[in-house]
């Protein structure tokens, strides 16, 4: 089946299977490998993308459901808003980096949906994104910096 979506601000058409997952279409058909597959069951958050401004686990989300919707990945979000990647770079909010795109996308969603979020709200919001390396401290600082617009 053919679907069309607004991907990172550009109109794209793509031919997918009815059961294709959004993550596979993004990575394999559209070349957006910034979105990572971790757990594959919607727990770790590495595959987080924005659909209509809300974070979703693209490993659970059918590509067909993105038809005529707006999808943003880490590539598009950081290209259009330099502050987003800057916050993570300046706070060194990563180590191995495999969870980082998901953390970045979750941070973007937080600023859109809860501008001015406080520390505890940030911690709650970011709990959908696992990180095994860092102990979360620098990630939460990066998110705070971004949400505060520093």
């Amino acid at each position, binding site marked *: 089946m053919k679907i069309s979506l607004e991907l990172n601000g550009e109109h794209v058409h793509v031919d997918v299977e009815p059961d294709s997952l959004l993550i596979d279409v993004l990575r394999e058909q559209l070349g957006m490998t910034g979105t990572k597959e971790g757990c*594959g*069951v919607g727990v770790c958050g590495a595959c987080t993308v924005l659909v209509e401004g809300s974070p979703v686990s693209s490993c659970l989300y059918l590509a067909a459901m993105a038809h005529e919707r707006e999808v943003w990945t880490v590539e598009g979000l*950081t290209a259009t808003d330099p502050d987003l990647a800057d916050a*993570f770079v300046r706070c*060194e909010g990563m*180590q*191995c980096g495999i969870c980082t795109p998901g953390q970045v996308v979750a941070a973007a969603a937080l600023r859109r949906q809860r501008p001015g979020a406080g520390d505890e709200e940030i911690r709650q919001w970011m709990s959908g994104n*696992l990180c095994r390396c860092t*102990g979360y401290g*620098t990630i939460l600082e990066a998110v705070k910096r971004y949400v505060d617009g520093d």
Partner: protein
Amino acid sequence: MMTGIQEDKGRRVVSAGSGAGRLDARDKATGITRYVADLSVPGALHVAVVRSPVPHAEIVSVDAGLAGRSPGVVGVFTAADIGTPRFGRRVIDSPVLAIGKVRYVGEPVAAVVADTRRHAEEAAALVEVDYRELPVVASAEEAVGGRAAAVHDSPWDYPGAVVSRDDGPNLQSVVRLGDEAATEDALASAAVMVDSLYTTAAGHQGYLEPQGCVAQVEPDGRVEVWINNKSPYRLVTQLATSLSLDPKRIVVHPLPIGGDFGGKGSPMAAPLCVSLSRLTGRPCRLVLRYSEDLTSTNPRHPTTMRVRIGADEDGRLVALRFDSLADGGAYAAFKPTASVNLHGLVEAGSPYRIPRRYIESRIAYTTTVPKGHARAPGAPQATFAVESAMDELAARLGMDPVELRRRNVLRDGDPNPDGIVWAEARGRQVIDAALGALKPKPVPPGWLYGWGLSLYDRATAPGQTSLRLRDDSRGAGVVAEVPIPETGTGNHTVVREGLARLLGVDRSEVRVVHVSTSDLPGDAGVGGSRVTASLSEAVERAAAAWRSRTDGQPVVVTLDGADGGTKVTSFSVQIAQVAVDPETGQIRVLEIISALDVADVVNEAAHRMQVDGGAAMGFGFAVLEDLRIEDGQVWAGNLGDFRMPTAHDLPELTTVLVPGGKGVGVLNVKQIGELTNVPTAAAIANAVAAAAGARIRSVPLTAEAVLSAMEASG
């Protein structure tokens, strides 16, 4: 960044904006960094693995007829096709595809190669395997109990085996260390003794990037491998041995690694992908699904430990006897050490002066997933046991458990139980630093409060590595070619920092490039917290050669890893504050204080993440993580069931650095990666005992165990 940070609560990221930040940060934050799963290798075929659903069985037949006719399938292969190679890091006992028998749920039996991953996975579900089941050997205790089936007919015959027929049928390794009779005598005459049994569960390393590999065998026999393996030079040797290849014709290409924690040092899927590429003539790609990684790679050894520790009336330790039995699973292939044992187990009691110590560490074959290295192999287990026993001993003595440690921790000049005298021994200072940071936290009404302390020490030892410096053809600067993958610890940034400092140039003039295995002489791989120490030594020598060169030619330095330098250890002391609900037994960890013996810190943010990430992992090991291996099967087969800490789960993490330590190399560094994940479980268990009078001797610590222990103690 050289800093003398005394107390770093309320720490700032001092490197922000200073240019000392990570060199991989921007690519990682924007999704540009390409990991193994992101590669597009032209013409690559996709592999799906048919895995055993039973723990122990003979393979009666494999029917691949239907699978072979499935859309997109190029072939379905078994040991009958690839031959019967085995691989291993030391003991070469693991088949690439099962040879006649399966020995764990998840063992690869057949491989489907197809044009897409979807086609490969769909066809794999159609492969029919007929099994004749054999008796399950579900635990290490069963394996050595005398009535168990033999997991392998003659394990002593595998290349690299360290056991003999006399050791009995189901042992991978046994290490006996010390004078048994003298230790028993000392225990028998000790004024006070504790004799307790402790157990720890199996846990996955928890890297979020599953293991993956692409391999290509060229028509001329050259082998190219792309893999998230942390020891690429060792992989070359292992592959050559396993598949009878010329190591000079194997190239492992550089890739970043999406988390390791000890789990990505085996050959992983490389022997399979190389074998399949040989058969198909095409590049073959296998990236595990996370559930496959959780259930069939090489998790941490579940371990049972009996600790007998004695002291005189004044609380001076007189002897320690430590008997451990670990479940090594179906194959020993995933342990790299010469003894095929775990350092942490055979070093039990290392922070203390103990006149007599005897250790027996056995690792058994069972019909469960093979076990491997996980961050500080064996140490979280042994430290949980010994540091819990220290608190039990203090209770018997009627002594403050901190005072017991202060009396016995190594001081300058003391030999440790292995006879090593460290350049300095700052255990007391680190204990005092931890205590200095302790400010009791409030607990919810009706909950019980307690805190507990635990202690660990670990050596810093540089290993084998190499480094090349050359002029940057892009500009005025220098290029440093490194053999070590960036696993996330910031090791490439350390090279840039060291070179900039030694050559007196700006960081922007140093470009660090991870190169393939054909480009440098060698490296021992990431592991044992040796990377910063090794690389900084190599950087020092390379910079000296670079400054004195007269011919403009590249400079290559190699470090043989020989242990000739300063003997350095680091003490790690953790205090956990907990609240326990007496109604339910629920434990709430309020704070983990980590006090650490450090020298100079190269990159503060990276150092801090090693500290905090370690404490988070120690917390997960202590209270959450259990693969739940029962009846030969991993039951926690996805990240919903195998629970790792989220940002919300973690307690407050407080770090106190005790600076001024003697480190190694020009950067004066000490290891940091395997200090804070080790003492956590005992610190929490000791805090729970202090709060609720409940001594829990198994991790993960659960509310059920606390409640039943509280009920038992009235």
